[in-house]
C-alpha cells in the first residue's frame, strides 16, 4: 500500500508492564484501521502510544510528514500538541460541566488558532442529538448520551487523527446502536486517519477498511478487514467477540 500524503505510519516497539508490543502499520485517511485481539494483547497500549499518553521505546510514529515520536531522532510531540483526539470506553467526560461546556473545553484548547465558535458547538450539539440536553451536567447523562458527547468533544478539538478505544463496549444494545449511527457518519466524514480498537468483528467490518489482529503484542494478521475477519473465524476456537474461547 502506498501511504497517501496525510497517512499515519507507525513502526514501533514499547514495553508496558509485562507486555512487549512491536507493531508496524500504516493508516490512510478514509481507510480506517480496526485493531482486533483478545484482552491484554496490547490494543489499548497501541492507542496510548499513538496519542502520546505513553512514549515508545524504539521506532517511529509519524502523521503526514510530522514525526510524533521517534526515540532515535530524540523527537517526542506531547499528547496535547498532537491534534489526536481519543474516545475512551469509559467516556471520561468532565462530569461537573454541562454538555455544552464539555464541548467548549475542547474548542478552547485550540484557541491558539481560532476563537470559540458558537456555530461550531451548535452544529455538534445538533449532529449528536445533544441539543435538548445541552445545559445538563454531563454526570447525569445516560451511557449512550455520554459516548455521543465524548465523540462530539473529540471532534470539537479539530483533530487530525481520531482514535477510538472500544467505544461501544460499555453500552447496552439500544444505546450502542445510537452511538454506532453517530460514529458511522463521523468516520465517513472524517478527513484524517482513524484507528478503532474493538473486540467486535461486526463493528470492525462496519466501520473499517483494514484490520490488524494483535496477540501478545504481535501482529498475527493484517490486511483488508473482511479477510482478517474471515481469517479469525476460520482460525478455529474463537468466540464471536474476537476473544479466544476458554
Amino acid at each position, binding site marked *: 500500500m502506498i501511504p497517501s500524503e496525510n497517512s499515519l505510519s507507525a513502526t514501533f516497539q514499547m514495553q508496558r508492564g509485562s507486555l512487549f508490543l512491536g507493531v508496524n502499520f500504516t493508516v490512510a485517511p478514509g481507510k480506517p484501521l480496526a485493531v482486533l485481539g483478545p484482552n491484554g494483547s496490547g490494543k489499548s497500549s497501541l492507542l496510548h502510544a499513538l*496519542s*502520546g*499518553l505513553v512514549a515508545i521505546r524504539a521506532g517511529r510514529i509519524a502523521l503526514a510528514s510530522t514525526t510524533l515520536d521517534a526515540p532515535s531522532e530524540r523527537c517526542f510531540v*506531547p*499528547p*496535547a*500538541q*498532537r*491534534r*489526536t*483526539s*481519543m474516545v*475512551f470506553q*469509559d467516556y*471520561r*467526560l*468532565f*462530569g*461537573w460541566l454541562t454538555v455544552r461546556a464539555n464541548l467548549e*473545553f*475542547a474548542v478552547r*484548547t*485550540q484557541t491558539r488558532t481560532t476563537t470559540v465558535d458558537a456555530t461550531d458547538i451548535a452544529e455538534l450539539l445538533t449532529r449528536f442529538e445533544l441539543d435538548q440536553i445541552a445545559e445538563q451536567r454531563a*454526570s447525569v447523562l445516560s451511557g449512550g448520551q455520554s459516548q455521543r458527547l465524548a465523540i462530539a*468533544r*473529540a471532534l*470539537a*478539538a479539530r483533530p487530525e487523527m481520531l*482514535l477510538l478505544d472500544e467505544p461501544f463496549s460499555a453500552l447496552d444494545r439500544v444505546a450502542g446502536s445510537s452511538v454506532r449511527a453517530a460514529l458511522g457518519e463521523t468516520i465517513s466524514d472524517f478527513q484524517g486517519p482513524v484507528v478503532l480498537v474493538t473486540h467486535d468483528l461486526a463493528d470492525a467490518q462496519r466501520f473499517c477498511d483494514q484490520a490488524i489482529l494483535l496477540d501478545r503484542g504481535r501482529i498475527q494478521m493484517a490486511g483488508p478487514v473482511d479477510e482478517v475477519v474471515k481469517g479469525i473465524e476460520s482460525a478455529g476456537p474463537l468466540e464471536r467477540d474476537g476473544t479466544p474461547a476458554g
Partner: protein
Amino acid sequence: MAGEHLMSAQRNERTAAKLATGARPVFVKILAAIGLLFLVAPILGILSRVHWLSLWSQLADPAVRDALILSAWTSAATTIIAVVVGVPLALLLARGHGWTAGFARAFVVLPLVLPPVVSGVALLALLGRTGLIGSRIDTWFGFTIPFTQVAVVVAQLFVALPFLVITVEGALRTKGRHLEQAARTLGASESRIMWSVTIPAVRTAIIAGAALCWARALGEFGATVTFAGSFPGVTQTLPIEVYYSLVTQPDRAIAISVLMIAICVVVLVSLRRSWSGRFLRDT
C-alpha cells in the same frame, strides 16, 4: 413444598428485601454490636454528666471564651495553610514514581502514626530557642516560636496536614488520572488541565480532606502542649482547657467537651453529602 408455602405466606416487602440481600451470620452481628457500642457509649457517658442548666454559664466563662476563640482561628489558619501547601504536595505525590516519591510519601504518613508528644519534641528540636533553625530565627529576628500562638498553628499543621494530603492524593489516583489523559488528548495545556480538570475532579476530596484536617487540628493536644505550652489566653486551646479543668472544674471540662462534640457533629453532617453521594457520582 411445605417450606416453600411457609415462606410465601410470610412474605411482605421487608422480609422479601431482607431475604434477597442475605443476612450476615449472628456472631458477626454480635461482635459488630460490641464494636459500635464501644464507640457510642462514651459519648452517651459525657451527655449523662452534663449539667444542662449551667452549661451556658460554663461556656460563657472568659477563660473558655478565650480558648474557643484561639482554637477557632488557629484551626482555621491551619486548614487554610494545609490546603495551600497540601494540595500541591498531593498533586506531585500522585504523579510521583521511584524512590523520591516513596520517600516523600513515607514522611507524609509519619505524623499520622507518630505519638503527638514526639511530634512536639521534634518541633522543639527544630524550632526551639536552641534548635536547628530556631536558634537562627532567635539571633536574626529576636523571635522565638515555641510557646506562642504561631507555635499552636505549627503544631496543628504538623499533625493535621497528612489527613488532607492523603485524602486528596487518593482521589487523584482514582479519578484524576483518566480525566487528565482525556484533557491532554484534547490539546489542553498542563496548567489548564490542573485548574480546569484535576482540581474540579477532586474538589469533594479537597473539602473532605480539609474537614478531616480541621477536625484533627481542633482536637490537637499532645504536640501543642509540648511545643506551645498551655498558657491561659495565649496558647491554651479548647482540648488543653478541657484537660486542665478536668481536675479543678470537671463540669467545665464536660461542658467544653459537649461543645466540641456538637461542633464536630455539625461539620460532619453538613459535609456528609461530599463523602457519600456527590463524591462517587460526579465524574
